[in-house]
């Protein structure tokens, strides 16, 4: 058992982050706020002009917006998982990350929730997606995976509650884990329920859940490493913690790599002409650079984590986490765009290039996320003091 001093020191150091911010903080916050504002402006511009300001076209009806949506949902869910699953497994190393991971979840859900609206041709009628009572009894279509999304995202929002209590925490953690898995499965069904080669496959649910944990863990690293440095939390978030989280990263990387292999195997073993043509295209076609980059980021680079030395190198982990973030964003992009670009009828094949509006809105979404995270870091203790104390007392 450590001394009272430890507890005081802990409080002092963790809470130090809540003191008056230095100018750099303000600069970062203002930049994020401005970029977020730019994103909102572009969205309004898109609503006034029409969806055509995005680069979408006839075969490729979904692009960067849905990529962003899946990316942010993935981030959100992995935050939940880190917090809840590791809690259930009594993985003590999570204490160092859980507060950030939870904050990340909330902000990522907020960001993710915007994209289904942004991508609507008529965003102003978004409420038609809810089964609200109305006189003409116009109902929503419960067969549509997009409606399943509406409900699943609704659930994620309510998870905010497990912010608080230990007791409730266990219950919520037990409740949240299957929920995360099911919710992310629903997101994957947005694709798997279609008949488009490259989307229509049964492995999508586990594939997406693993992908979500993978990308979320990477995002946690991206956020925590600078935070640890800036707030001088080295004592509480230790190398051991990082090593463990990078083991999670490595494990999920292996799962997604396995999924990549299975996708191809199914397509060619199944001897299905359209599937085979699609996966040939994904590997060798117009979007090949993206696919190869994705493979390098998601499957090759994480293999280096087999080396203990690298697992314990903070700088290396930070760089790696950036690569994984990029790789996972590209994974969703490649799945969405290549599947649509060349489907059944060769006449209607076409390519998609994102426009500046889409890039701007994506940048805006990152800015929004980081803006909230910056605010969070100043308003709430970034580490859960009680949990750390409990951990220390055991």
């Amino acid at each position: 058992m450590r001394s009272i001093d430890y507890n005081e020191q802990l409080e002092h150091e963790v809470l130090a982050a809540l003191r008056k911010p230095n100018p750099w903080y303000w600069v970062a916050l203002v930049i994020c706020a401005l970029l977020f504002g730019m994103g909102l402006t572009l969205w309004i511009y898109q609503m006034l002009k029409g969806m055509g300001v995005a680069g979408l076209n006839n075969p490729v009806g979904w692009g960067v917006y849905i990529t962003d949506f899946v990316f942010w949902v993935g981030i959100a869910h992995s935050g939940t998982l880190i917090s809840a699953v590791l809690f259930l497994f009594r993985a003590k190393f999570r204490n160092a990350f859980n507060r950030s991971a939870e904050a990340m979840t909330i902000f990522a859900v907020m960001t993710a929730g915007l994209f289904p609206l942004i991508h609507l041709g008529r965003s102003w009628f978004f409420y038609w997606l809810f089964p609200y009572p109305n006189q003409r009894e116009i109902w929503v279509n419960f067969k549509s995976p997009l409606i399943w999304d509406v409900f699943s995202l609704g659930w994620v929002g309510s998870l905010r509650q497990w912010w608080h209590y230990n007791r409730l925490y266990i219950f919520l953690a037990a409740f949240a884990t299957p929920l995360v898995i099911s919710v992310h499965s629903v997101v994957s069904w947005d694709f798997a329920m279609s008949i488009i080669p490259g989307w229509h496959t049964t492995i999508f649910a586990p594939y997406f859940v693993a992908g979500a944990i993978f990308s979320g863990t990477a995002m946690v690293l991206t956020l925590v490493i600078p935070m640890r440095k800036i707030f001088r939390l080295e004592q509480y978030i230790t190398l051991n913690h990082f090593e463990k989280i990078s083991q999670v990263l490595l494990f999920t990387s292996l799962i997604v790599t396995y999924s990549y292999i299975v996708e191809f195997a199914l397509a060619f073993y199944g001897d299905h002409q359209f599937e085979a043509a699609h996966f040939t295209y994904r590997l060798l076609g117009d979007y090949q650079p993206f696919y190869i980059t994705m493979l390098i980021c998601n499957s090759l680079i994480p293999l280096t984590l087999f080396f203990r030395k690298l697992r314990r190198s903070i700088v290396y982990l930070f760089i790696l986490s950036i690569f994984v973030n990029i790789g996972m964003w590209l994974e969703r992009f490649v799945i969405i765009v290549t599947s649509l670009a060349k489907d059944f009828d060769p006449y209607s094949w076409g390519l998609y290039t994102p426009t500046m509006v889409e890039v701007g809105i994506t940048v805006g979404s990152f800015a929004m996320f980081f803006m909230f995270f910056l605010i969070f870091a100043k308003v709430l203790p970034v580490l859960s003091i009680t949990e750390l104390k409990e951990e220390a007392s055991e």
Partner: protein
Amino acid sequence: MDRRDFLKFLGISSGTAMISSCGVDKANEKIIPYLIPPEQDVYPGKPVFYNTTCTECPANCGLSARVNEKVYDEVRGLFPTKAEGVKGHPINNGALCPRGQASLFRLYHPKRIQRPMMRDNDGNFRVATWQEAYAYVTTELQAAKEEKKDNLYFSGRTTGTLAGLIGRFCEEMGIERLPEFEIFSHANLRKANEIVFNQPEVPHYHIKDADFLLTIGADILETFVSPVSNAAQYGEAVKNENFTWYHLEPNLSMTGLKATTRLAVNPHSEIYFLAYLLHALSRSDIRKRRPSWAIMNMVPDPSAEEVSQKTGISAENLEHLVSAFFIAKRPLIITGGVSTAQPGGLEAALLTALIQAAMGMNDTVVDFAHSQNYEKVGSMLDVQELLERLRNKAVGVIFISRSNPVDDISANFNFVEELKNARLRVGMSDFMSASMQECDVVLPLSHSLESWGDAAPRKGIRNVIQPAIEPQYDTRTEGDVLLEIMRTASGQKQGPDYNQYLIEQWHSLYGESETVSLIENGYIEEPVSPLSIAVDTRSVESYLKNTDFSREVAAQPVLIITPSIRTYDGRSKVLPLLNEIPDPLTTVTYGEWVSVSAVAAKKMGLKDRDEIQISVENENLNYPVKVQNVLPENVYMVQRGLIYAIKTDIDSRSGEASWYLDNISATKTGAVIPLPILSGSMHEEGRGILSSHESVVEHSEHYNEKLKEEVDVEEERIYPKHPHKNYRWGMTINQDSCINCAACVAACYVENNIPVVGQKEQLQGREMSWIRIEPFVRDDRDIEFTLMLCQQCDNAPCEPVCPVYATYHNPEGLNVQVYNRCVGTRYCSNNCPYKVRRFNWFDHRLPKPWDKMYNPALSVRGRGIMEKCTFCVQRIRAAEDMAKDEDRLVRDGEVVTACQETCPTKAITFGNLMDDSSRVSQIARSDEAYRVLEELGTEPAIHYLRKKERKSEA
């Protein structure tokens, strides 16, 4: 709150509600009971049809203008909103081509000349009054006469009453009427017919009566003389099981791809084949009538090997062709288009005429009695003569009417400069074309849908031209202009207008009752005196004496300049719809391009859109490339309708302008030019979109068996099967008779208010067509086409994914799109395997005044909404309402979709699949039927009839 306050609030709020509900806006709206229709037989919501004539090209098909009553700019009025063919018309029988369908874009074109214009002293155009213009022209005519200069009248092809009136006008005013100007003048064909038969005419070909058709170069289904008539006849002919069609061409045309067998020939080698055929005929035992003229000795007699070597047709194919031709009961040979518009074109046409005579076709299928009224059309020789006179400053006033010679011939002649030598140039046109820019007085002509008139497309047919709308601008018909100039010259104040003049003419020709039927039916068939056609051996002999047949095959590579099905000779280029819909063979929309054979492209490392430089002598032309499979290696193609700037040779004997440039060189420049090519890939890779033996077998095994045994597959489904009540609408498309002319595409745009989005959007892949023609290469030897539109699937993949039920399956089997409900997730489009759904990326309203042509029966969709083929649901509803009033079900054939209505070959059938006796059900049960991507289990409502197997050679 006490009771008193509550009552106060209640009083105020209900009072405010009452006041606000009596808004000022609503009070301004006048509601007039519709007791007396504004015009006879006009009832609200019910369109009226006026039968008139299409003037988009010289074929002059019967056009039936649908006029709807609607509110435009807050004024109620009558507007033509759709062009259809006149039912039963001897030329087009209810059909129109894409140009005809798009002709409303000309009527409402914002760039039409709206009032008369004259040049002021600075040389700029100013608005003038008609009287001013007439007075000026009359004085100038007089002044020119005093200067002893010739006054000339130069016009496009003119038939009917107007031709007579121009004659009278020229006579009275002392004007010389020049031969009419058409760039596609068929000069070699007419010259040959003159030499052989003394008939300087283009005959009427009875394709439907033929059991064996041999076409050489003539693109009969695209632009040749009267393409809709040809196509309609082809639709009839192809019903005959034994109908065989060979097409020989140096290039690649859609017509050729439709033939039973297409044989590519070396450029300029057609005469060897024709000479061989003529001599083979004289040696053959099969035909009773063998040509035994002495002149036969003057025609070279090449051996089969020599022909094979010169033309590139294999000896085997040659033998097949010749024997099939000889044993046919009613063979028909047509040479034209690219094979007559070449240096040896006159010989080719002449040999063809001799073969026609020898086979006795002139009594049956080659009909000079009903010839195409081209006798007054001149040739390039006449243009040369005109230029000579202009150069010698011998021309006073020149009228240029309904033609655009500056664009058409300026590549060959310095027409603009020579035209300046005339004393005065008077232009009559609807557009400020390049030719009108050179005129001093520009008199705007009314569109044919605003005018009275008539036309004689071929001998024995008189079409009426009648207005479907009041003239929208200060324009006149050409007839009125001529009558008024004559009156101004003679100082008369009053006189008959052209309408009265016409009626007098019709009364004198047909009598009063026939005149009424002419106006009602849109046409009248007159008896023609039979002609006895015989070969004038003496004239042929004297011609053959001076002819050298030993013409060498063209020095390759060659550039061939063909007419375009979309723009004809270029005159329809101004219509935005024809730029918006793709050229069916290449799927290029906006812009100019060179078609390069796949073989040559591979050798030069060219891809689609790479720039290529074509060099001829000292001229260089730069265009983007469209790689064209099946095109012979050394042939490059451009479309004349899109490209004017190419100088070609003129045959000094007939005045035919060649469509060829020999001995060109082509080099890749390295630049890439954006060119909208709508096809993502020309290679179908056995995906089951084209018909194949397997798709038909699979269809009959699975679908027909299921039908017969009524196996219920209920247990296999998650969701229950859609119930259908009374109707399940379905369609069949006959791939054998479909000629891929794109008339349906154009008709669909106009009927359904589909936005025209322009080049920029098309480059992004955002075309909006609900129906499209997809070309696919088969085995690198052939290109087949398929018509793709919403398949109205029973298990539609688009339906379950829509979160808001904006698309759902209605009880009549239609896959309905509810525009108001759509929020624009685009999931339906993603999930559609046929990719026929179209998203409105922006608000694309037609600019004024084009929006006058919007069909009031359906909405114009705003941004953010998905749309697609509805099977013309507005027409279905109209028929159902009618049936409901009469307390019955809709009869078979009562609903006609826009694509079906305009189809020249009647390839499309529409009707109720639940009614076993309907035509569509019967055709759908045919052994040749299949459905596209059947294996996906979407259960489409569209059945395709397989294209029959045929041979082809690259």
